[in-house]
């Protein structure tokens, strides 16, 4: 019996982690190029609602995923335009992207609140009560595997390819990258839209599999935890994945505490991930002496003729 419980916990951990991880990985790519996008929460929300609506109306999951990803990416291009092309403040723009994303998705999602999804992203192989780790892994749906591929792919691109090194070069040192002839505006624009696309994928995972329904504010701060995860992971894909598992575990553990004999108010359980996120962030900043490994030129608008 314990085993089944444990496997349930593991399963829930993987699901929660997938959701957080995809968004964090997208933000990681954006930030590597030197753009800070605080709009993750809004982008996830846009992806979630547009994917959900598409799934309801077309009953095509494939289409739903595509629409969710593309609409979040298109939405993030607002941030790219304002900060990269118009060189405006990235903090302000990102915050507003979150606010706009949440209200926009509430607006278009309103008629769909409470609707039931006829189709749902299914597991690779559906196993009702998985009893070992393999079965749990097989029990995940396609997006989980896509997330793993994206992780490997992103880590490889960033570390091992010219293309990735150039993205990182820009985020590290705009002026040096520019004098190397690298295309700053283009790279940052694309990296921001890729970040949006990833957030969108995380969003469709939320409404097509994790929850699966649509209601206002259902992203409940996951975009912000994803932002913290990027810091936690020191802007490295694998470490970010580890962080996502950790936070996913916390999220999954909460509702199960009682079954393990812990008496704790469910309301308090719900806020522990946020508390732990903050504590971890503080702890990390302290041990790294304020130097968390952020791209050095993150958040700085680039104008070539500036000194």
């Amino acid at each position: 019996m314990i085993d089944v419980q444990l496997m349930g916990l593991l399963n829930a951990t993987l699901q929660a982690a997938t959701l957080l991880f995809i968004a964090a990985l997208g933000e990681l790519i954006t930030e590597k190029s030197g753009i800070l996008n605080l709009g993750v929460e809004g982008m996830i929300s846009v992806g979630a609602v547009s994917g959900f609506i598409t799934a309801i109306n077309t009953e095509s999951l494939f289409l739903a995923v595509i629409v969710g990803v593309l609409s979040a990416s298109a939405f993030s291009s607002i941030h790219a335009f304002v900060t990269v092309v118009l060189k405006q403040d990235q903090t302000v723009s990102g915050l507003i992207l979150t606010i706009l994303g949440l209200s926009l998705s509430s607006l278009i999602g309103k008629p769909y609140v409470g609707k039931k999804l006829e189709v749902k992203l299914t597991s690779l192989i559906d196993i009702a009560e998985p009893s070992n780790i393999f079965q749990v892994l097989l029990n995940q749906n396609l997006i989980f595997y896509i997330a793993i591929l994206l992780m490997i792919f992103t880590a490889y691109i960033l570390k091992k390819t010219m293309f990735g090194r150039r993205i990182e070069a820009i985020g590290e040192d705009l002026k040096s990258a520019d004098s190397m002839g690298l295309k700053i505006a283009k790279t940052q624009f694309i990296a921001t839209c890729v970040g949006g696309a990833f957030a969108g994928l995380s969003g469709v995972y939320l409404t097509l599999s994790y929850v699966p329904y649509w209601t206002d504010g259902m992203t409940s701060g996951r975009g912000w935890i994803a932002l913290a995860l990027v810091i936690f992971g020191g802007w490295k894909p694998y470490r970010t994945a580890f962080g996502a598992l950790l936070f996913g575990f916390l999220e999954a553990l909460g509702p199960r505490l009682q079954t393990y004999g812990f008496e704790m108010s469910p309301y308090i359980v719900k806020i522990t991930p946020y508390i732990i996120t903050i504590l971890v962030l503080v702890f990390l900043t302290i041990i790294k002496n304020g130097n968390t490994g952020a791209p050095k030129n993150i958040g700085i608008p680039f104008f070539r003729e500036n000194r």
Partner: protein
Amino acid sequence: MSSPILEVKSVSKSFGNIKALDNVDFYLQKGVVHGLLGENGAGKSSLMNVLSGIYLPESGTIKIKNQNIHKMNPDIASSFGVGMVHQEFRLIESFTIKDNLTLSKANIFTDNFEEAYEKYSEIFTLNSSYLTPINELSVGEKQKVEIMKLIFKNSEIMLLDEPTAVLTPQETLQLKESLDQLSQEDDKTIVLITHKLKEIKDFTERIFVMKNGKMVAKNLETEKVTDQELIELMMGEVKTSNFKKDNKKGDVKLEVKDISLTNSEQFKSLDDISFTIQSGEILGVAGVSGNGQVELANVICGIEKEFQGRVLINSQDVSKKGVKSRKKLSLSYIPENRLGVGLAPGVSVLDNSAIKEYFKASYGPHLSKGKMLGYLNDLIKQFAIKAPDVKAEISTLSGGNMQKLLMGRELISNPEVIVAAQPTRGLDVSAVEAIHKLIINQRDKGSAVLLISEDLDELFKLSDRIIVLYEGRVVKEVGIDSATIETIGYAMAGIDE
């Protein structure tokens, strides 16, 4: 003479109301090492930045290899074979040498990197593996990587903006040998900017000189010009002092004893400096920027705290005291970095005018705008500052008026000790004149003045004594009567007579 490989005609570039380049003509001969000389702010870096596609000029034309350039950016410049080593490093610190050498799209050694690295690291005597991150290299090694970057981009035209400023004499010598080898073997065209005349003499065949955004001398043959001619071209006609030097000197007001400062990289930016200044005396500090001037001023004024040695104001040891308590002992500091240290960017003229003594305009927590305004109006009147709108951001003032505001703010309270760093840098003639009068006036009121400047004209005009800083050391100290432009100029350029 064959047609030039690069030709610039009547290029102009302004930043706000500063004309960095004013109708500049410039040309380079293939395979020749050219020197570009000029005082700080003359426009040398701006011109190089135009050539490498960083700055877009408002007017003028550029022709490279007989082709008119219609669109410019760093990428296009590279494709025409123009490469630049910037005054500040353009290296990605956390990346390896290899990354820095190969990330540029113009890199030619994609397949045979290791071979090429071996060859050129030998030419440049760089003994590090290409997997070493830049931040583990010494300053000299970084400079070598910078120059190697150009070779890996296959730049035929190499623009080197003060590459030797950060090098030791031995490293400079090495650099010369490698550059010689390159210009002979690979027929590279090179522009070298440096403030050190000796290097210009040693390295170059042709010399261009800029002053105040204009090209004042073109294509001089290095072998045929004298140092004195160059110094005059760069610094203008050397005027004799207009101020009388019969000022009375009194007690010692500022004393600096055995000051040394070691930075994090174990580099000694100040090395055992001692001097005194009396009341009514101006001590001039000559030197090319980056030889310890900023550090010296910061030590005296309490901003830099981790130094060895002692600082005494009015015979009182203030070595351990903070900024505010030194100010209370009647010390004023006019920092070299006008906007960013002396004045806060993005903040109004009014606020900036009160930084020294804002607490005098306060009643408890209340800050009297009226008092501040009154004080600012005094400043504006007394120092003839043109400030169209005192509530506007400080950057709306011209450089000269910014400096007058800063000077006025620091001088109006009649301080006993004044540290002034580059007080006239980048200012036009009339503003310079006004600032000079202020300093002399202060001297006559009995202040002890430490005047840090790179402008020899200014130092001769104002100082009673001059010391020369070179690589953090005082390499020369002379009274004004026995000093000559040449001896000081030589010492600044690191030449022992």
